């Protein structure tokens, strides 16, 4: 296998332009700002070792306390991650359902799809009622043939790697950090896997650089894959498309 072809930039996501105020921009709007991020060091000291308790369920909010704020910031990050995982999970699930893939590519879609769905389930479990609902997706034919699928999967996975990287150091809780680290690591594997199947160098640079929230939202919106504005709170209604 030749892996000499130039890398596909995440810009592949920008084939089509059509601004949709979808799940991602909404979750991004709730993320801590950079200023908050920089100031957090002092707050963390002030908050002391409170972080250990009540993390798993996001319960035990004390409104206004440093702990409540840091928990709120973390949940915003986890929801942002959830939006990205919804996107990926739904993409692979649809690719599997359409059935246009064969051989190693079909295996990649099946295995990676199961991972992304597991990430969705894990994030939803942590976020509980605060989890954003799954938006509706329209993958606009990119799951219909191996070539479009491959190009889109490369772009989605590379973007996911960069987006997680931006968020990791912003996570307050060590518990959530450990989980996000374990997931981003797998996203790196996914990116390399699909790149190799696409015939491009799996690890083209020595460093994966972070992708800002704004840029992530821009890239995802440019795909027009997200077709329905997502409500602030999850509803009991089952989504029209379950990925």
């Amino acid at each position, binding site marked *: 296998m030749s892996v000499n072809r130039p890398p596909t930039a995440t810009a592949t996501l920008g084939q089509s332009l059509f601004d949709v105020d979808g799940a991602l921009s909404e979750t991004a709007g709730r993320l801590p700002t950079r200023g908050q991020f920089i100031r957090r060091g002092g707050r963390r000291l002030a908050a002391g070792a409170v972080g250990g308790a009540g993390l798993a369920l996001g319960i035990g909010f004390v409104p206004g306390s440093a702990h409540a704020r840091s928990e709120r910031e973390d949940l915003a990050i986890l929801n942002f991650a959830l939006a990205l995982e919804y996107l990926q999970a739904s993409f692979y699930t649809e690719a599997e359902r359409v059935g246009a893939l064969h051989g190693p590519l079909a295996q990649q879609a099946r295995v990676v799809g199961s991972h992304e769905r597991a990430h969705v389930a*894990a994030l939803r479990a942590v976020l509980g009622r605060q989890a954003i609902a799954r938006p509706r997706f329209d993958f606009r034919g990119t799951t219909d043939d191996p070539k479009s699928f491959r190009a889109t999967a490369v772009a989605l996975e590379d973007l996911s790697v960069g987006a997680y*990287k931006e968020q990791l*150091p912003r996570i307050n809780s060590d518990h959530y950090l450990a989980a996000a*680290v*374990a997931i981003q*690591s*797998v996203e790196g594997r996914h990116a390399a896997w699909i790149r190799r199947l696409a015939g491009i160098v799996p690890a083209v640079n020595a*460093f994966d650089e972070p992708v800002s929230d704004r840029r992530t939202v821009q890239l995802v919106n440019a795909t027009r894959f997200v077709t329905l504005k997502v409500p602030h709170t999850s509803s009991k209604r089952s989504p029209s498309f379950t990925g």
Partner: protein
Amino acid sequence: MDGVQGTATQSGVDLAGAQPTRRDALTRWLRPVGATGVVFGAGAAGATVAFARGASGLTHRDREVLEFLAGLEQLESSFYAAALSAGKLTGEPLQFAQTVGREERAHLSDLVHLLGGHGPSAGHHRFDRMVKSNASFVAAATTLEDTVVAAYNGQAENVTRRTLARIARIMSVESRHAAWARGLAGKLPAPVAVDAAIDADAAMKALHPLLGGAS
């Protein structure tokens, strides 16, 4: 290296199951420097003092972790250098060794730079057995890369978030290397939904076969 992988199944991820890595395991491993084969540069202890108030703003623990990670990068760099100089690799495994070897060197120099210029000295490893064919090379690279991924993951909580931002740029590249190596070995590049995190002791245990006579 499936042993390093599986704390999660593909169908179920337990975020609560992500194990925090204990610091004591790291320091315990770092103390007997040299005994394990990843030899840190002369004055690893002295450097801590000398650079305590360096411009880097690293905490003592940051330094310990970065020294450990630099040791892993040193090991990886030596491994790929040995594989290339043995001259037995062909095709994609050769391309893998060239690309990944270059990236590990870049990681090492980034970490050494962070540490204020004090890095690990080259270890004396005998990789002969592992670099004599594409197959043996790919098998060893898979073990090495999977272990390094888990070792980085295990240190994320042990450093300040500021240092994490720096090493996070390396972490996913190690994941890419691991996936590439596994693909070359005919294994699933991403076998589980959530990668394992291991402490320094576990990393050294997993690397034991590669370190061969050095330990």
